[in-house]
């Protein structure tokens, strides 16, 4: 059986671009949420977000790439550059027909699409729009497949390439897709992860009417507080992460540093509601159990749970139930945390950022905390690692994701087994 190793990690996240800065944000328990600076959000219900202070040129992008790529694509390319460097691979010397790409995004080129629309519709006044005012690159915003094609092009990767777009589980699902490409022998190396840049008026506006996002505008820095009794929704984030997935045998043969391997991945639908969750957490627990079966894991193996932890009441209750249903009493004995309390919820991007966090948690033996969690919701009775990172040996980390459409995903990373 072909196994999937993680041999490189690249991250663009709020609070600090690059893998090391990201990890520093997490272990310090620092929240990167703030009042939105990208546009005037005064008329919005939610006016806060976790923005990246991202300089594409400093991250290694060329001027023409900056011109044609929407921000989320830039995140992915920057993260991929860092991940490949981290892996020690010299792709120019590899058989690039065996290098694939699998990347996730929930809303794709929304930011570019919106800014272009403002121009071609003359401020939203002309439904028939004037195509003469469109940028030559607007199609890159129309189809999120641009995310995968740009990364394939950047690295000359000629293996299979695709975008997975399953809303807020896109990050986990894209890495699951890349993992299956390696298992099935379609590629030996896959650049896999996700990116999102949804801090734009239309994306913020669409969560306002359903009150999914936090309105703690006067406490922007502490607004993201999953599992806390005072939480009132998620805080929008942006960013991305790319992992180098590599067939374990070849990673060992070249003496690569193996962070961990993917020992299980599964997805389920709740087939219930596009945005609603039942409190029993049933389908998410099924995804967790399926992922555990694949790695021959029992509950006692799991050392840390990186929760979806969006900070909406229904998620926190649903997810707590799912973890308990899947892990039984063991759920009470291990740290659970939500890094969305620090880097916000970057929709389709966050799942990959969280997988990077899990790999780094195994690497460093540290469970990142849930920031801003001062008093747990009475219905949420697990150990959510409040405020302060915790040092402990972590051999097996579970990450969960939940999103619109009813999708529930789970992935397990394990320290490399013999």
């Amino acid at each position: 059986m072909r196994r999937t190793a993680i041999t490189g990690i690249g991250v663009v996240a709020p609070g600090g671009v690059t893998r090391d800065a990201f990890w520093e944000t997490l272990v310090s328990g620092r929240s990167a949420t703030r009042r939105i600076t990208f546009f005037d959000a005064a008329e919005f219900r939610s006016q806060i977000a976790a923005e990246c202070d991202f300089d594409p040129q400093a991250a290694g992008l060329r001027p023409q790439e900056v011109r044609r790529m929407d921000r989320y694509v830039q995140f992915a390319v920057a993260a991929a550059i860092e991940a490949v460097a981290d892996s020690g691979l010299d792709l120019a010397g590899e058989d690039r027909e065996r290098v694939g790409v699998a990347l996730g995004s929930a809303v794709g080129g929304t930011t570019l699409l919106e800014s272009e629309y403002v121009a071609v519709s003359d401020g939203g006044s002309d439904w028939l729009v004037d195509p003469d005012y469109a940028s030559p690159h607007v199609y890159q915003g129309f189809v999120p497949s641009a995310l995968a094609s740009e990364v394939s092009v950047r690295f000359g990767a000629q293996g299979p390439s695709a975008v997975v777009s399953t809303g807020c589980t896109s990050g986990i699902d894209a890495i699951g897709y890349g993992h299956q490409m390696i298992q099935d022998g379609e590629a030996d190396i896959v650049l896999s992860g996700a990116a999102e840049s949804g801090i734009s008026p239309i994306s913020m506006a669409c969560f306002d009417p359903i009150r999914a996002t936090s309105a703690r505008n006067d406490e922007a820095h502490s607004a993201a507080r999953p599992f806390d009794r005072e939480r009132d929704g998620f805080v929008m984030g942006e960013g991305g992460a790319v992992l180098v997935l590599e067939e374990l045998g070849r990673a060992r043969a070249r003496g690569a540093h193996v962070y961990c391997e993917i020992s299980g991945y599964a997805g389920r639908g709740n087939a219930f509601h596009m945005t609603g969750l039942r409190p029993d957490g049933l389908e998410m627990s099924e995804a967790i159990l399926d992922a555990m079966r694949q790695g021959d894991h029992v509950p006692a193996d799991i050392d840390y749970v990186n929760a979806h932890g969006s900070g909406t009441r229904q998620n926190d209750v649903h997810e707590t139930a799912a973890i308990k249903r899947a892990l039984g009493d063991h759920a009470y004995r291990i740290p659970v945390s939500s890094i969305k309390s620090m880097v916000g919820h970057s929709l389709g991007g966050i799942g990959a950022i969280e997988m990077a966090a899990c790999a780094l948690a195994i690497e460093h033996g540290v469970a990142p905390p849930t920031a801003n969690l001062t008093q747990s919701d009475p219905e949420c009775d697990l150990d959510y690692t409040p405020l302060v990172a915790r040092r402990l040996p972590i051999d097996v980390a579970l990450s969960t994701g939940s999103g619109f459409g009813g999708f529930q995903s789970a992935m397990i990373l394990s320290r490399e087994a013999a």
Partner: protein
Amino acid sequence: MITSVPRRDRRAVITGIGVIAPNGIGTDAWWAATTAGTSGIGRITRFDPSRYATQFAGEVDGFEAVDYIARRLTMQTDRWTWMGLAAAGMALDDASFRPAEHDPYSMGVITASSSGGNEFGQVEIQALWSKGASHVGAYQSIAWFYAATTGQISIRYGMKGACGVVVSEGAGGLDALAHGRRAVLRGVDTIVSGGVEAPIGPYALTCQMATGRLSSIAEATAYRPFDERATGYVPGEGGAILLIEDLESARRRGATSIYGEILGYGATHDGHHPWSLPPDARQLTRAVALALRDARIEPEEIDVVFADGAGSRGWDDLEEQALHAALGAHAANVPVSVPKTMTGRMYAGGASLDVASALFSMRHGVIPPAVHVDRPAAGCGLDIVREASRAADVRTALVVARGYGGFNSALVLRRTSDCPSPPTPTGGPDESSTLHL
């Protein structure tokens, strides 16, 4: 039992097909039109296209969402999702598959999308910028994103198994079916797959025109792949939703209509440039060769090719070269068709509909034509089925699809009655590292 790797005792077959196409709603109307060479391409009627260089498209006339779904749901979803839900219902009916009778976790939904609920999105962006943030509707968040159709199908039919959405522009239809096969081979019994697209709106057309690949000839015959007068393509809306099942579980439930098996799949990327032609046809060639290898068949076994047919000289030439390189001498003899000439290119829906065409060709022994290709480019060297459909005994079909940005995919399908009885191992781990052509 769900497993982490493909099981060799499982085979992914297609048991149901639902079609929404510019030249016919439902498989009966669509196949009758397709084999008759009847095109659904005309001047755009859904909005006034006067100010656009491209004014022709394949629109699905007479499609009423409320014929298929509750009015309340139509308010919450884009035209793209209406078509997806309608086609999914048709596919389930076609297969006589009743979801309520099955374990919810044994069923999943994996579709392709390229532009999501783009028209719904245009409405809401317009509302935001002309009237203000409070005028953005509550359903924008669930109607616009690319996963809306998969989510709605999953909810409507109570399907709780693996769910997914694959985006690779025009290659997506094949990639979604291949991902559906992955799920079936890993133990999910039934996957609703395929894809539809609804890209005929003012802003959507503006975005597509920016690629420079659309024809600006204002005639219904503008899209002529492999023709010396090729000037680009016209867009179309619609596509096909297909029901993939494990062969054994399909037989166990007494499925009577099994179209064919997904026997092989190959995908590559040009890895060259975000929009320009690659220097050669190597990666498209490799996608076809990988699909043949995955299917464990020789080129001579291919009875028909449904080509990508980009409709512009450079891209058509590359595809012709790829077919020659991958199929060898057989490339000159095998019939090649592009029924998309009757619908326009439907992005995520296009390759899905080509798979439907391949399966109907097997069942009915007839290959539909590529219409308006009356002057094949000099030296084309392909046997293009032109103007009229052709009778043929089709056991094995190859479908080729490409996506803007460099995506290449190929799928091999085999008529189920011609599948050998012992399980054919497909999609399993393959240790050989490189295909040298």
